[in-house]
């Protein structure tokens, strides 16, 4: 695919245009990537599609083969796998804290010890998520910058 970048006047609205023969999975992937960089991700709820702003996400959880996105009081489903979110959101204040959870570090209010070398993150909506032993060192490193 050829890439063309055209500089436009500052008063014009910036845009991205994709010229393709058909809208296949490859094109959908590029669209998702661009949307993510604009600060939103695609998710579904009761078969309707939504654009979820990253700043509203509390955590993302994988349950069996499904991935759920949790906001303050609502939950959406995504077709993406958890490791994809982990990679995509790594530079956006999100961090993997256990085998099944990626959390928004900006939504944590405090960290408390749980049992067995694990830690409990209290979120701004009073929910709790666990940092498993395996990820503690990584999280410490990430928070220290």
């Amino acid at each position, binding site marked *: 695919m050829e890439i063309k970048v055209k500089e436009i006047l500052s008063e014009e609205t910036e845009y991205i245009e994709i010229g393709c023969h058909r809208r296949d999975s490859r094109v959908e992937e590029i669209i998702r990537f661009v949307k993510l960089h604009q600060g939103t991700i695609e998710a579904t709820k009761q078969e309707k599609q939504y654009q979820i702003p990253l700043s509203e996400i509390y955590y993302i959880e994988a349950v069996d083969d499904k991935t759920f996105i949790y906001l303050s009081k609502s939950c959406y489903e995504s077709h993406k796998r958890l490791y994809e979110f982990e990679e995509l959101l790594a530079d956006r*204040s999100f961090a993997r804290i256990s085998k099944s959870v990626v959390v928004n*570090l900006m939504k944590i209010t*405090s960290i408390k010890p*749980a049992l*067995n*070398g694990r830690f409990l993150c209290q979120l701004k909506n009073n929910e709790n998520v666990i940092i*498993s032993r*395996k990820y503690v060192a990584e999280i*410490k490193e990430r928070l220290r910058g």
Partner: protein
Amino acid sequence: MKERIKEILNSFFITVTLINVAMLILGKLLEPTQVFGYEAFMYPLIYGLIGTIPSIVIRDKKELSVKQELIRKVMNMLLIIVLMLAFMFGGREITSELIAAAVGVAISIVIIFVLVNLIIWWLDLKTAKDMTEDLLKYQEKQENAIR
């Protein structure tokens, strides 16, 4: 794996230290004139090893909730009591003295188990406080970057 080994070693050395303290206190109270050979140094290590066997054997594939973890801890402790009693009194004839000694050992194990977990929890509490402080700084830095 590295974290697991670190945790097991942590628990082993705290257990050995507390067994030493328990042996000192119980010995002073019950048998103050008793004399031991060098083999006495081995017992805290053996008991410490027996105490860590359940943590080595039992592995959780799934992430447990705090409640499930508490239940697992209690089961872990009961298993240690059974192992320790079998090691210390296994094969002996059951008498009232043996039962009294076994009850004493079981109570000591419960006290040591609770103390080991309290010390580990206290160390984790300090880590959690440091992490919370780092988290608040991180959040402030991120918010300033957005503005």
